[in-house]
């Protein structure tokens, strides 16, 4: 059993909603007075669970509440959660940018974070000078940076510009240089927030490769926060899920991902956006008897009713795209591809799929609306589809395979 390198106990973080501070000098003094006498902070008792969508009764909110977890040496721990679930707050506490309100984190190693690359770049300094400055900010000593300088420059691919002030760099080059510095950090525990969505395709590939090296090859302990389920699945060995500031899941990755998707991706099949002027108002899934369905059987005939609004009578092309839980594209149904557009001011478009082809599991869908190739509306992760085993071939036999498609075929 490998040793525990980091241990968090009862981490909580309280924020005040609205204005910053406790608001008045009076409250500040009260707080100070309580603290002086060693009493509990009077404002800590109140506070709601952090749920973005409901208005709470208190001005205080717990961004994190009683988080406990341990990280073992060499482990790659993934952390996922909805926007506002407390991921960033947790990372900020881990990287010591801000302190917890209660609780403590004990660690046996140096923690460094890649919260955002390029922090502290000075535009007037050259690339080389900025490598040193940025490295220093991230906690490297001059000697450490000097020993890696050529590697960093090579990795960034900015050899030619390295003695030019950074203000002359393109934004892409700046990001490359910044990532290169960060990638050569060597802390005991590395905290990574989604930094991968930077640079061009070539550089992204390089960056992902480097991440994998860091987490796999070099046996470093990594805390990885991402929305990219595929990246989580390939890189992580254990998973934490945060929900409204609470730790809602801890454990195995693939189970966790499913748990997360079923609870997070709006959690439901149908869609509603009644205020839109041009685009989709509702999406409703029906079976062939026009009854609402909660889940889909493999091979079932389904109708998807899409109610649209189209004030200026544009030529709307409606498209639904289906993805698996790892964000892998499965198939899409785009109306203008089969020469169908909708130009009345309001109406219902119906997409019929005669035999649902995807095997059992959880999928989600995106919607997009185009007018002559110009995107008008694009909603990602609109709803979640739960597909159950079904009789695709209509002969009472349930094929066993769990991954992939079912298609109609003939043997002769």
């Amino acid at each position, binding site marked *: 059993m490998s040793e525990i390198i980091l241990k968090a106990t009862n981490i909580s973080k309280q924020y005040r909603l609205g204005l910053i501070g406790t608001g008045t000098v009076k409250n500040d003094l009260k707080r100070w007075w309580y603290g002086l006498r060693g009493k509990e902070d009077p404002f800590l008792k109140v506070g709601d669970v952090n749920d973005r969508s409901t208005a709470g009764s208190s001005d205080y909110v717990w961004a994190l509440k009683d988080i406990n977890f341990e990280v073992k040496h060499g482990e790659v721990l993934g952390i996922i959660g909805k926007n506002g679930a407390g991921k960033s707050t947790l990372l900020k506490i881990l990287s010591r940018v801000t*302190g917890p309100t209660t609780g403590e984190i004990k660690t046996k190693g140096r923690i460094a974070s890649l919260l955002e690359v390029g922090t502290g770049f000075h535009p007037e300094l050259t690339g080389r000078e900025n490598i040193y*400055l940025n490295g*220093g900010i991230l906690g*490297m000593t001059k000697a450490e940076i000097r020993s890696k300088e050529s590697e960093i420059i090579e990795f960034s691919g900015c050899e030619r510009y390295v003695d030019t002030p950074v203000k002359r760099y393109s934004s892409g080059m700046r990001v490359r240089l910044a990532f290169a510095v960060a990638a050569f950090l060597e802390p005991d525990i590395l905290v990574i927030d989604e930094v991968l969505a930077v640079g061009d395709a070539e550089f992204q590939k390089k960056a992902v490769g480097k991440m994998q090296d860091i987490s796999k090859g070099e046996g470093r302990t990594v805390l990885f926060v991402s929305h990219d389920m595929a990246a989580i699945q390939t890189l992580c060995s254990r998973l934490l899920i945060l929900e409204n500031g609470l730790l809602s899941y801890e454990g195995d990755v693939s189970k966790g991902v499913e748990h997360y998707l079923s609870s997070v991706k709006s959690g439901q099949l149908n869609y509603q956006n009644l205020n839109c002027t041009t685009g989709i108002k509702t999406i409703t899934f029906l079976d062939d008897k026009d009854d609402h369905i909660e889940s889909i059987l493999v091979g079932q005939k389904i109708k998807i009713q899409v109610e649209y609004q189209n004030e200026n009578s544009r030529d709307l092309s409606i498209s639904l795209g289906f993805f698996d839980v790892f964000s892998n594209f499965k198939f899409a149904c785009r109306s203008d591809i089969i020469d169908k557009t909708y130009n009345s001011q309001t109406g219902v478009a119906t997409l019929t799929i005669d035999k649902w082809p995807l095997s059992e599991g959880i999928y989600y869908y995106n919607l997009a609306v185009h007018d002559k190739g110009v995107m008008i509306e694009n909603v990602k992760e609109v709803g979640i589809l739960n597909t159950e085993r079904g009789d695709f071939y209509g002969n009472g036999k349930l094929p066993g395979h769990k991954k992939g498609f079912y298609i109609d075929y003939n043997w002769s």
Partner: protein
Amino acid sequence: MSTESKDQWLYTISSKRKLININFKEIWQYRDLLLLFVKRDVITVYKQTILGPLWYFIQPLFTAITFTLIFNKVANIETGAVPPFLFNLASVSVWGYFRTCLTATSDTFKSNAAIFSKVYFPRIISPLSLVTSNLVKFGIQMLLFICFYIYYYSQGASLSIGSSLLFFPLLVVLMAMLGLGLGMIISSMVTKYRDLKFLVAFGVQLLMYISAVMYPLALIREKLPKIAWLVEYNPMAYIIESARYMLLGEGTISTFGLVYTVVVTIVIFFVGIIIFNKTEKTFIDTV
């Protein structure tokens, strides 16, 4: 095997914090960053300016000329045996160091919010680097002073340098500590109460007039005995008076004044560190 003896942990992140909690070992680990910040501040200030580092000279030079014209020629302030210009140049340079230390550090949290909200390093590195980089500027300005000193000396002005000059570095350290301490207090409070930002801007201007910058300490006692206490309670006044005594042999050094200054400086410095320490942990939530 997961034996968990408490002493194994490298460090603990917790909500509790001791009153003074300075991790000198950690600050020492980040010494390279301090130097990098100093280098950045010194190099980048006058980039893409025509006169470049000459600006370091221009500011004290022209301020001293203006002061000489207004306070000595028009208002007839006596500067003893010392040429008024040299008197003012010394005061202006010394005051300038204190002023830049104070104003620069008082903005620490706000101007570094972008970095502080992303990465951890001992926050005190930032104000320390400002005090150090301003020391470099101060050193350059003292070169200018030496040039004029030699010029006036060769012209036969009566200037005397005593052994007290040896204590000048200590005076500079005292000044740095005072500026740093005050700056840290203000910077910590600015994160919550923005009013202080405006106070600093003109407060420093007013402070100059009660810091014996353009007149000898003795003069205010003689001319305005009723409000002389305002100057006498100001530690900066003693620092500047002492600096002139060390550099020019003009004025007095009072034991009481110096002891008072040292005590006040140390108190302010430690209060500054305590408040700064308290703020650095959670300022990102309030800034």
